[in-house]
């Protein structure tokens, strides 16, 4: 069994603590929003998971570029780890948004520009794994994956800017929102504390999971190589 580095073990513990503190700040410390009530509290995890989701998709695109330049399969592992973790976080973002929308917009889902681009982004990266499954040769798979994440990364700024460029009912946290936006609110000081702490906590959690996932990818490659050696 491969031993986990002490730094990673410490990061695992710190991530768990940060998640606990962030949950406390979101559920207890932050005041209840008067118009929406308790459901507004999902906002803290909704934005934080969206942030790390997008961060990972961009990191995957960057890893793709580095792989295409160097040809080192290590970057393919980094890319795959980033996509996998971001898929999980972005899925949480979409589900939390849908749950928030039910009492506030009176619907679970609407084909608003932001919701549509977010769903497309998620599906693009689901398809990334389907593409990888269909290619046997590791180098070819890595090359195709790198180009795909590079193109897929375009969906990230489109999703981010959708609420700033198009007529949409989705509220904006930073910047000017559309006149049609519903469910926006002014953040109080305590809400800002919970909000920025959630962003920080999820960034650390992302780094921790990313490191763990990259290590697992390296282990999988080692097993694969040894399997080929033993079978010869």
């Amino acid at each position, binding site marked *: 069994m491969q031993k986990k580095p002490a730094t990673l073990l410490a990061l695992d513990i710190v991530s768990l603590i940060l998640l606990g503190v962030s949950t406390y700040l979101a559920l207890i410390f932050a005041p209840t929003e008067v118009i929406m009530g308790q459901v507004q509290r999902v906002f803290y995890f909704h934005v934080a998971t969206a942030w790390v989701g997008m961060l990972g998709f961009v990191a995957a695109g960057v890893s793709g570029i580095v792989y295409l330049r160097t040809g080192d399969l290590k970057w393919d592992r980094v890319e795959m780890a980033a996509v996998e973790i971001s898929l999980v976080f972005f899925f949480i973002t979409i589900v*939390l948004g849908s*749950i928030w929308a039910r009492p506030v917009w009176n619907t679970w889902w609407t084909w608003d520009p932001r919701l549509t681009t977010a769903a497309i982004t998620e599906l693009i990266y689901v398809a990334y794994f389907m593409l990888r499954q269909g290619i046997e040769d590791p180098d070819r798979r890595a090359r195709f994956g790198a180009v795909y994440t590079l193109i897929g990364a375009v969906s990230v700024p489109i999703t981010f800017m959708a609420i700033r460029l198009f007529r949409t009912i989705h509220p904006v946290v930073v910047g000017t929102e559309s006149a049609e936006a519903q469910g926006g609110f002014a953040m109080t000081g305590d809400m800002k504390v919970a909000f920025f702490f959630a962003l920080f906590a999820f960034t650390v959690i992302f780094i921790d999971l990313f490191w763990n996932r990259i290590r697992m990818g390296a282990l999988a490659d080692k097993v694969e190589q040894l399997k080929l050696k*033993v079978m010869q």
Partner: protein
Amino acid sequence: MLFLETTPDTSSYMIAGYAIAFGVMLIYVVSLYIRSRNLNRDLSMLEDMDKNN
């Protein structure tokens, strides 16, 4: 919600949201652990086979 005078009770939605968020994160962490454990098991088995060869 524009003309509501009291704050609506939307706590069930909040609970559902956080339950799903924690549930999904937990499933992912458990999947990472299981996959790593299986890979470690495969690795030690293959190393033994390699030594015997």
